[in-house]
């Protein structure tokens, strides 16, 4: 299988869907002539031209709202936010319009859009550029949220997201864009709402999404090598819809769970999972559910400090060990 980057995987998904469906249009700042600030859309404008790949001014509220409006007539805009952080400028459009137009019209209208871009800390760009809003957006019934951790998942989920008839908030990670994974040439789709067990173990469940899932894999290796503890690593992939069955399945097997996310702890995705475990797996648990989240402050600029703000394997390992003492 070819090894390709996360960035290329996304690009292939976009390219294939532009070709497949004449209603798919890419909108965003620097996505066309500049080839994308992070090169996800590189070459697409050359290949598909002005109509399908469109540079917008720095007007997030307007171009995202425009995409939502155009979707009412059947277009399928895929809109890039240079950073998900800039969604704050378009919040009303995303939440009130994309999120609620279907409900408020009694189901007369739907909104088949994708908003995509990087949503991560860890790159020393300061608090204004390091948002991880998956929990905030998953809090809005009507919106869907996905956070792929690998190139394979990114491609399969992107193709599904574009074909989905609801608004999908697609969160990528600048730290993963250049990483490579095996991705088949043949077409495949990954349904939203299906988690992926990325490592099998029997002693503890590490549950995560996005880059944190990869951090869990590293922690799992340390746990196995140094402590003889075998961890299941469950990558949620999709936050809403959420694969509740997979979460319960792994915890019923291991009876212990550590939840890891790069988001802040308060009302984070893991708070929801924790609540699910209390409600549906209480009797299965041999230890309290523990969480490892980003340190609860705005993103610190200083490169040497910011790395400590996000979960690292060495933050996860002691948490897991504490469940066995």
């Amino acid at each position, binding site marked *: 299988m070819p090894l390709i980057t996360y960035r290329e995987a996304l690009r292939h998904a976009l390219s294939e869907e532009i070709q497949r469906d004449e209603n798919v249009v890419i909108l965003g700042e620097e996505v066309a*002539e500049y*080839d994308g600030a992070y090169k996800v859309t590189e070459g697409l404008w050359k290949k598909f031209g002005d109509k399908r790949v469109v540079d917008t001014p720095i007007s997030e509220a307007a171009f995202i709202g425009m995409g939502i409006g155009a979707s009412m007539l059947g277009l399928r805009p895929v809109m890039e936010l240079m950073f998900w952080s*800039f969604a704050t400028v378009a919040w009303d459009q995303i939440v009130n319009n994309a999120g609620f137009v279907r409900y408020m019209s009694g189901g007369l209208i739907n909104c088949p859009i994708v908003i995509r871009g990087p949503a991560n800390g860890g790159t020393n760009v300061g608090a204004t550029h390091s948002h991880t809003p998956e929990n905030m957006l998953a809090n809005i019934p009507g919106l869907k949220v996905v956070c792929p951790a690998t190139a394979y998942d990114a491609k399969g989920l992107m193709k599904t997201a574009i074909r989905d008839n609801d608004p999908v908030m697609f969160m990528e990670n600048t730290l993963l864009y250049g990483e490579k994974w095996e991705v088949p040439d043949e077409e495949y789709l990954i349904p939203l709402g299906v988690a992926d067990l990325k490592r099998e173990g029997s002693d503890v469940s590490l549950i995560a999404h996005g880059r944190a899932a990869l951090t869990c894999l590293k922690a799992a290796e340390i746990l196995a090598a140094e402590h003889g503890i075998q961890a299941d690593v469950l990558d949620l992939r999709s936050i809403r819809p959420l694969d509740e069955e997979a979460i319960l399945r792994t915890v019923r097997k291991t009876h212990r769970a550590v939840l890891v996310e790069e988001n802040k702890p308060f009302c984070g995705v893991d708070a929801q999972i924790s609540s699910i475990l209390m409600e549906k797996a209480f009797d299965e648990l041999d230890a309290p559910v523990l969480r490892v989240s980003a340190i609860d*402050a705005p993103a610190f*600029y200083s490169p*040497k*400090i910011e790395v400590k703000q996000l979960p690292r394997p060495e933050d996860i390992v002691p948490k897991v060990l504490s469940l066995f003492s």
Partner: protein
Amino acid sequence: MPMETPESTPDHASAPVNRSLSPEQKRRFLSDMLRIRRFEQAALKQYSGGKMGGFLHLYIGQESVAIGTVSLMGPNDHVITAYRDHGHALAVGMGMNECMAELFGKATGCSKGKGGSMHYFAPDKNYWGGHGIVAGQTPLGLGLAYGLKYKGLKGAALCFMGDGAVNQGCFYESLNLASLWSLPVIYIIENNHYSMGTSLNRSSAFKSCLAERAEGFAIDWDLCNGEDIYTVRAKTQEAIERAHQNSRPTVLEIETYRYYGHSVADAKHKVYRSEEEIERYKQNHDPIQRWKKQLLGEGVLTEAQYDEIDIAAQQEAEASVQFAESSPLPSEASILEDVYYEVDHGTAAGTTGRHFFNN
């Protein structure tokens, strides 16, 4: 291809605000511009050497705008800008040391290493940032003006923004309020012709210029060439007087040019604009060279003095690198400081209920 900037007309040198300048003050502007340039060149070198992270947006080429405008500030005038903020920071009197240390992410940085290049602040110098979200500072500039008027102070808020920022909605909401409520804000559009890789004509619809959009809000506006300090000062002074005397806003568009990419990471800046274009600006429109020529012509500067000023700027920049290099990193505990005032001060409000949620 951006439009050529209009030549400044000679009468700006004789504007009252310029006529009153002493030779020392004129040389000071030269020194101030060179300090920005040398500081940023030193920063670029350190960035390339891996001493900092994130983005580094260089102001080089635009120095006359910050120096010309800020040189007119009185005690009740305030400044706020976007992420290309080093020039304005040095212009208001922030030290190279704290600015360089911030880039290095050190505890001695102006924001204790928390903000980085895009987020400099110095309230004691009426300098309110350093803002990373495009146009996010425009309502804040309005707020500074509102605060001045509320307190009955004769001042102005100089709110700097790029040519790309004019397309954000909050800017227009701010213009309406500024005019409706007669607030002393001056929006200074630093039109360097590009927003990242997008040229002005690909991003903005306008009649004669961006500032003209103010017309619809009944706000006075003006357009000028930014490469000459006299011009910048003459035009800015009109806006400041309008703010001080009549509490009225202004939109002032100043044409300028950045020599480097949007940020240091912008690998395509010689693709979306030509090398010749960049060279043309460097050769014919460089604000520092132009000012040097001006002062040599006026007989208030010698080549030897120029060299002395430049060497001093370079040495100061070099010393700031040493300072940053030898400064301590922020402590890990400081991650949770400066989030809440009440917590930092240990007040009752800061100690009631739980504020932070890591276990």
